[in-house]
């Protein structure tokens, strides 16, 4: 650092030093008054149906029966060819971590209605330069079904500071939308333009997201990126 830079840095530091250091008394009073009305999140504690009212459990069970019935009907119906549409790739079938459940999920109206399946090239684990792991998991992956109760694909973002964040991921025209359902960004939908080049993946965040920045990721287990652990279980 040269002398001029040092002087300038000192000037900034001195200027910041002169700003107030004590919070107004109301700040703490407001926080302490509001605290009882803010419930704590429970880290690592999965959503439990038993915590819901009885009538809600009955309604959920009835809805599940209807969905399974529709799925059964759809499975029995012979496939039809839609000439005006290009054939949709079934990423879930070709995904490296696909399970029997994933092929069922790909056939559900929910998954089909929300956009294209996640491209196969996105699926799997990614490493973040600042530490942390990002996973794109295919529709039907147990992590998605158990953590966020979706038959769609999901994304898991483990910053390794707080508990992992999990969101429902949908894809359309080089853009992935993630509706975060747990963790720091819970309730926020992040929309990212996907730039994939070899083992490098950049997620360019659109305004209004939670990160406030783009994510530069490297395919785990390639180059300097280590092999990823399995995604954390919520």
């Amino acid at each position, binding site marked *: 650092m040269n002398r001029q830079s040092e002087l300038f840095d000192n000037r*900034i530091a001195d200027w910041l*030093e002169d700003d107030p*250091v004590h919070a107004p008394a109301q700040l*703490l009073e407001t926080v302490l008054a509001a605290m009882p009305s803010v419930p704590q999140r429970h880290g690592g504690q999965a959503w439990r149906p038993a915590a819901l009212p009885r009538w809600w459990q009955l309604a959920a069970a009835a809805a599940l029966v209807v969905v399974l019935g529709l799925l059964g009907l759809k499975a029995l119906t012979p496939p039809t060819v839609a000439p005006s549409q290009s054939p949709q790739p079934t990423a879930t079938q070709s995904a490296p971590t696909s399970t029997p459940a994933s092929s069922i999920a790909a056939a559900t109206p929910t998954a089909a209605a929300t956009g294209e399946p996640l491209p196969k090239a996105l699926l799997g684990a990614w490493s973040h330069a600042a530490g942390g792991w990002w996973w794109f998991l295919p529709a039907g992956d147990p992590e998605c079904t158990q953590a966020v109760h979706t038959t769609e694909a999901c994304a898991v973002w483990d910053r390794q500071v707080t*508990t992992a964040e999990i969101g429902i991921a949908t894809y359309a025209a080089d853009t992935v939308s993630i509706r975060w359902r747990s963790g*720091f960004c819970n309730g926020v939908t992040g929309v990212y333009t996907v730039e994939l080049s070899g083992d490098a993946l950049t997620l360019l965040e659109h305004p209004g997201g939670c990160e406030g920045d783009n994510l530069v990721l490297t395919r785990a287990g390639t180059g300097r990126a280590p092999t990823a652990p399995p995604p954390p279980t919520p």
Partner: protein
Amino acid sequence: MQVELIERAKRGDRDAFASLAAASADRCYALAYRILRDPHRAQDAAQQALLGAWRDLPTLRDVERFDAWLHRLVVNACYVEARSERRWVAKVRVLRAEPETVDIARGVAARDELESAFRQLSPEHRAVVVLHHHLGYQLTEIAETLGIPAGTARSRLHHAVKQLRAVLDSNESGTVGEQIS
């Protein structure tokens, strides 16, 4: 002591969190003020961060990282506050023109120029400057706190300082002279 308070607060002990909040309020406010440059918005951001800390504390894995985690909550609350619809409150300072106060006025003008230049930075760039120059964080610590790559932290700091210098250089002497004459 703080670790014990954090552990208790994680388990829902309100008194423990009240003690933590009391010990952290000044620090949160000071950080928010330096980024937002407005006392009311800084207060709002610090309050949001502390309430967010209470809400999400059970999800904090490493209690040793409480301070960095809290700083991150404050910075994120500042981003939200900065993007809210409320307008920045302009700070207008009238400089006195008496010859004997020229030195004082020159100093005040220089500070106002720095203030004005800093306000032209985005919240993300301000945060990096404050973490580095006020809290003394190294780039890796900034990256870790903000959850961004170290390269991004470096480029933000570089860009922010460059922009500050550019604004100050362009205003140098001429503007100060005009304001105090």
